[in-house]
């Protein structure tokens, strides 16, 4: 549970139940700062590095990311910080995501060869 996300009606940190929530500006700024710091730590790290940390992070903040992503997908305009948070989160998720199997280099070479000769 993300203690930074607060019930907008009471101002209390969530303890469960279904309530109407929103990502407050201070929540977004705080998580964004944490994400940027983490992103710096991972620069140069290999694929899959930091997976355990992602799991921990996901438990705490994925709901916030998903909320922003869904708002953006529905066409709602996000402010600068919200957009930055979403982009930073997605960049980290992409980096940690195991790559799907790509077309092997030798087949790519054949494809290029075919396209050149036809």
């Amino acid at each position, binding site marked *: *549970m993300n203690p930074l*996300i607060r019930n907008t009606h009471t101002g209390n940190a*969530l303890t*469960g139940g*279904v*309530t*109407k*929530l*929103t990502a407050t500006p201070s929540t977004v700024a705080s998580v964004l700062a944490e994400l940027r710091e983490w992103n710096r730590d991972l620069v140069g790290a290999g694929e899959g590095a930091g997976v355990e940390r*992602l*799991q921990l992070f*996901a*438990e705490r903040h*994925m*709901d916030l990311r*998903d*909320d922003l*992503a*869904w*708002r*953006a*997908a*529905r066409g709602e305009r996000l402010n600068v910080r919200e957009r930055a948070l979403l982009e930073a989160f*997605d960049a980290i*998720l*992409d980096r*940690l*995501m*195991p*790559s*799907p*199997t*790509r*077309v*092997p280099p*030798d*087949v*790519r070479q*054949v*494809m290029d*060869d*075919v*396209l050149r*000769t*036809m």
Partner: protein
Amino acid sequence: MNPVTRISLPEPPALTPVSARDFAAWLSWSFFDGICAYCALQSRALEVDHVEPASYAKERRLDPGNLLPACRACNGPGGKSDYHPDHVERRRLPRDTTGYSALDPRFDDFGLLFDVLEDGRLSVRPGKEHDRALWNVQVLLKLHLPKKVRARQELMELRAVAERLVEHLREEGLDASVETSSPTTRLGENARIILNMLARRLLFYDLFSLKLSEDPKALTRNRRHALRTRECGWTPS
């Protein structure tokens, strides 16, 4: 009313399963060559996903009808994880009150839900399932992330090259099928390599209803069966 079945899986093997992993070979065979059921891309290591999470449906923990192969990206904490419409974490999202369900290739026609663009991006088609499909792409499975997009782009390129190659072979009066294309010519050898690769990714194209002008199954039928039986230790009785 039962949903329309898009992919019929063969009968699961008769065994006394101890863990869901016992069905891994059957799922691998059914979905062909390491294809993830959610993103339809091939991955090196697939997990066995409980469509209804074990924590919400304990009685279906070993039910083969509740299992799908999924890559770590789709099934992990950045993806579906233990998603269930009633999952308390999900219900905290103010706009996620509809309880959308995760994509399921057995019942959802990906070709009706999405267009795969040439650059690998998914475009959600309008219709009554639009919001659910969009939510799956952007929120739950995150199919918009660059790694997935690049992999799809490569497959679209492969399809386009195969299309041109088949057309070219036909103009030359040659047979394009994998089994009979002549390996003695450079074109024949190239056709064999590309159509083999296409055969390995055929389910991707099937799921998104992407067709070659030439029937890809006719081109690759025997090869597909050979791949399946060689790469998986289990075949249906």
